[in-house]
Structure formats: C-alpha cells, structure tokens
C-alpha cells in the first residue's frame, strides 16, 4: 500500500469467506478482478500506489455471493486460501479463483481507510 514518510498508514484487513454459487455447470463468485504483475499497474483506478501490481476487486455483482460476504469494490486481495495473491499474474489469479474443486474461497483482503487505526475484524461466520 502507499506509504508517505511521516504519515500514519491505516489499513483494514478483513477475512472474507465466499461460498461459490452453482450456476449450472460453473461456479461463480460474483465479482471481477483486475491487476496482476503482467498488467500495467498505472491503469489501476483503485490503487493509490502506482507501483502496486496486486489483484483488486473491480466490480461486485449485486446479490452475488461476494457481496453477501462483505467484499467491496476496491479491495485488494492479499491471500486466497492461503495462497499469496500479491505477486501473481492476472491469469494465475483468475485460475485460482475459479478452481472447480473448491467450493469455498477464503480471502484476506485489505482496504485503505483514512479514519481509525489498523483494525482486523472477522466477517461473520468465520
């Protein structure tokens, strides 16, 4: 995340558990991702830090499993089922999220906020 020398950094770290929804043959989570080490980071509208090549949530479908679990647009995904997501290519991230063998994905996400100090709170049901 961005870092200004001398300024407080505040971040909210959240564990989000999403149960995939079965839509016929495919399992969907209900959000879109952007970013990756192979993408041009400066095009990322959600990151303040321009060198951040992480995976960000760019869209959350209404009523989908992601929205229900509390995932929000602009969140950065740090871990996925204990796999690191901060240094992956876009395609690797997509593949890890859409594994057919996994029905539940547990994400560690961070979001930047100005107020309050660093807080870690768990989403209900964890």
């Amino acid at each position, binding site marked *: 995340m961005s870092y200004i020398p001398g300024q407080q950094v505040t971040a909210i770290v959240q564990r989000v558990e999403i149960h995939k929804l079965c839509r016929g043959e495919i399992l969907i989570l209900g959000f879109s991702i*952007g970013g990756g080490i192979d993408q041009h980071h400066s095009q990322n*509208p959600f990151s303040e830090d321009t060198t951040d090549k992480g995976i960000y949530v760019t869209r959350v479908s209404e009523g989908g499993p992601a929205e229900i679990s509390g995932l929000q647009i602009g969140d950065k995904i740090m871990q996925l089922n204990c796999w690191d997501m901060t240094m992956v290519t876009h395609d690797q991230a997509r593949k890890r999220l859409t594994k057919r063998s996994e029905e539940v994905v547990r994400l560690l996400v961070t979001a930047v*906020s100005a107020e309050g100090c660093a807080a870690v709170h768990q989403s209900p049901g964890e």
Partner: protein
Amino acid sequence: MQDRLRILEDLNMLYIRQMALSLEDTELQRKLDHEIRMREGACKLLAACSQREQALEATKSLLVCNSRILSYMGELQRRKEAQVLGKTGRRPSDSGPPAERSPCRGRVCISDIRIPLMWKDTEYFKNKGDLHRWAVFLLLQLGEQIQDTEMVLVDRTLTDISFQNNVLFSEAGPDFELRLELYGACVEEEGALAGAPKRLATKLSSSLGRSSGKRVRASLDSAGSSGSSPILLPTPAVGGPRYHLLAHTTLTLAAVQNGFRTHDLTLAGHEESPAWLPLYGSVCCRLAAQPFCMTQPTAGGTLRVQQAGELQNGARVHGVLKGTNLFCYRKPEDADTGEEPLFTIAINKETRVRAGELEQAAGRPFTLSISNRYGDDEVTHTLQAESREALHNWMEALWQLFFDMSQWKHCCDEVMKIESPTPRKPPQALAKQGSLYHEMAIEPLDDIAAVTDILAQREGPRLETPPPWLAMFTDQPALPNPCSPASVAPASAWTHPLPWGRPRTFSLDAVPPDHPLGASRSVAPLPSQRSSRSRGLYNKGPLRTWLQSPV
C-alpha cells in the same frame, strides 16, 4: 554555419519560386507558395515553442511541408523538361498512337492502419526506468500528393500503433504506387540531455537503464548527422526533436481489397539507431479503390431496347451507363430523381458487345447487342441508338468501360465503400503528465530553487520558510551544487529573482508513469483525499489495456 545554411535556404526558395513562375503553371505555383508559407510558419513555431509535444507537432508539419515541396519541385522539373523538349520540336507525349486509351482515374483510400509492435519482455520486467514514449506518424505519398496521419504517442503499454483517420487520394490511376513511410521520434530523452555538456551527458547515459542508455548514446552520436537533403531545406532548430524513418513500404493495385489485409514493412535502421521501435514488421490496413467509372455515369441517352426473343419493337428508354450496369429508365428525369429503373442490363467482364452493323436488320440501323450469360442461358439485348454519332458514343463508352475494367481489375467487381475522411481535429493539447519528475526536467538552465521548491512542497506544511542554505545559491548562481544530481554548468543568465512562487501544476488526475527513483506519489494534497471512507476512484487517465476478469 547557421548563417550559411540560411542563405542557401533563401536562395533555394528563390530558385523554386522562379521556376514556378517561369512555367506559368498557376496551379502548381499556388500549391508551392502555400507549402513554402506553411514551412515558414512551422519554422517560426518550432523556434518559439517550449513544450516537447508542441515541438514534435511543429517538426512533423515541417517534415511534411518539406516532402511536399520536394515533390512539387520534382513535378516542376518534369514539366519544365517536357516544355523544353516540346519547344525544340520533339514531343515525347505523341510517341504512341493518337487514340491511346487511358484508363479512368479513381479514388484510393487507406484506412484503419494498424502496425503491430513486438516488445521484448525485458521492457516490462527488468526495465524499471522511464516509460519511454515515442511520437510516430505516417507519411503517405501517391503520385505527387503527400498526406500525413495524425501524430500518435506510443509506449510499451500499446501492442499496436493505430491510426484512426483515413487518408483519401482523389486522383489515382490503376498503376498507382502508394508509398507509406513511418517516422518516429523519442518524446523524452533527447531534450533532457541536449544542452548538457559532453562529459556529464556520457556519465548520465552510462548510468541510465540499459535500453535508455543505449538510445541516448545513439542519439548523441547521430546528433551531428542530419536528415535527407539538408542543404536544400535545412532544419532550423538544431536542438529540436528529429524524426527518423522507421519503416516503409509501397502498395499497389494488387494490395487493394474490400477488407483488411496485412502487408510487409521494410524496416529501416536497427536496434542501435535512435528512435528505434520494436516493430513486428507488418502493417494491417484497408486499402480501397473506387474507379470513377464505377461511381459516375459514363454515358447516357435515349435507346430503344429489345430483348432477344421478343417479337415487337422494344421499349423506348433513357439509358445510363454507370459502373457495371446499364440502367434503363422510363424518362431522363428518373435517373436524377432516384426512381427505380425499368430494368437493368449487367455489363461485366463476361459480357459480349457487338456492333449491330454486321447483322443489321432492314429498317433498324444503329444497333448494338449486349449478351450476358446466366448459367446456361444466354440473354441478348439489342439496343438501337438514335443516330450514328449516338451509336458511336455508346460503343466508345462501352469499350472504355471494358478497358477500365481490365486495368482496375478486382476494383470493378463491386463498388468499395469509401468514407470521406472527417476533418482532422486540431492536435489536442496532450494530457499533462502530472508526475513531479515530468514537470521537473532538470536542465542546466533550471534553477536550484525550483528543485528545492518541489521538495519542500513534498514535505508538506513543515517547510514554510526557505532553508537558510538556499541563500547561498541566490547570491552565487555559478556555484555548482555537488548533491543535486543533474545541476550542471553555470546558468547562462540569472535574470529572474528567486522564483519561490513559480506555479507548477500537480494534477493528480493524470496518468502517472514510472519514474526512476521509485518514490511513492505522495504529494501534500493526498491526505485530504483520504478523508472520505468511500473508495474513491483515482482517475488514472484512459483505462487502456488493464485486463479485468469476472470470477
């Protein structure tokens, strides 16, 4: 040296003008005068502009004007030669038989030009340097017409160079040769080191990133050499940006197709040459040609048409020969008002036309017959003209059409759509790159104060008053500062007072490129943006190639 060049240039302009006057060719003379005026304007603009992008645009116009002037001069010389030869009695134009048929002209349009690039992976992963940007444009020449596309900025985020506009040439023969030339210039590097002394420049170029250092060294080496025809039309500004020819190709009638096609590009230069762009080596475009015989009516008149097999006398119609069809209207006015024709006779490569003189039936002079084959059937129409001249005109028009079809080949199969090019938008003021390091081009003429100015603003409100050590520099401008990275040779003139309040726009909305020091983009205004809980979108300019996938 500059004076000598300028005198030569003036003499050349005078020579060109005199030649144009002596030929009394008002059309070409007018065009030449226009180009010379444009050229003077572009030179003045180049000398006056400060921004790199403006300089690039001005240099581009200069290059285009130069090419046009050269081509007009070539044309003038050709005509002068022809005139001189004509005066001495020999007429080379009459060498062929007098009734030499020449094919009709046409419109040629090239659109949707796309040139793919082939970036090496080192550009993305190991190269943490500046985002190299190039300004490229295409110069297209057909006959004596020269046209250019808009200037496009290219960097490693683009996979192709795309030109949006379409270029139309209005008078082209079927033997046309459309020459495409791709010119490119670096946007950043040359300017930053143009004024630096040799030793520092070499030190800097060796300490820059691998690829940028090579480029800089190449540009410094070739700074002495100039482009084509330097004596005839010398470039006025030595320090300005220079375009280099990156690739070229020539397209002819064989390349025309009513769809996209890929053609090969001949690459000029190699990796070490300045302004080198990793081109894949091909260009995709849509080259369409519309011969005039397809779009304009070539003959018209009253006819009496009879279809073979009918017994009674044929209908009296007004026929219009346009493209590969002979439209027969009820009345002459119908052709203009857009009414549906009574019937249409197709005329294509397989049609056979015979003058009716041979099989003249009694009482029906001036006929010609048109036969078409539809599958197994052969349908013949007999057309009766009003007089011998009319018949002759019709025959002439039909033979011309057949000749045109043989020359323009596949362009006559069906009419290719050509959109008239939209008037070119004036070159938009390119989005100002808001990063500090772009605003802060550290040139020798720049002052130390501006650098500390920017650094102070980064620290935030802590630094209200100028630091005491700054006073040292205002009094003795010639003191080189050992810590500042690129402050160089004594500034030539310290005429302005300490520019503490020099306005520098820091727009956070612009696309922030990488900068070599890798520091975060933390400028004072940022904390206020973070006050709201909502995840504001940091507008990073046009979202170009940032992939998003639904999961």
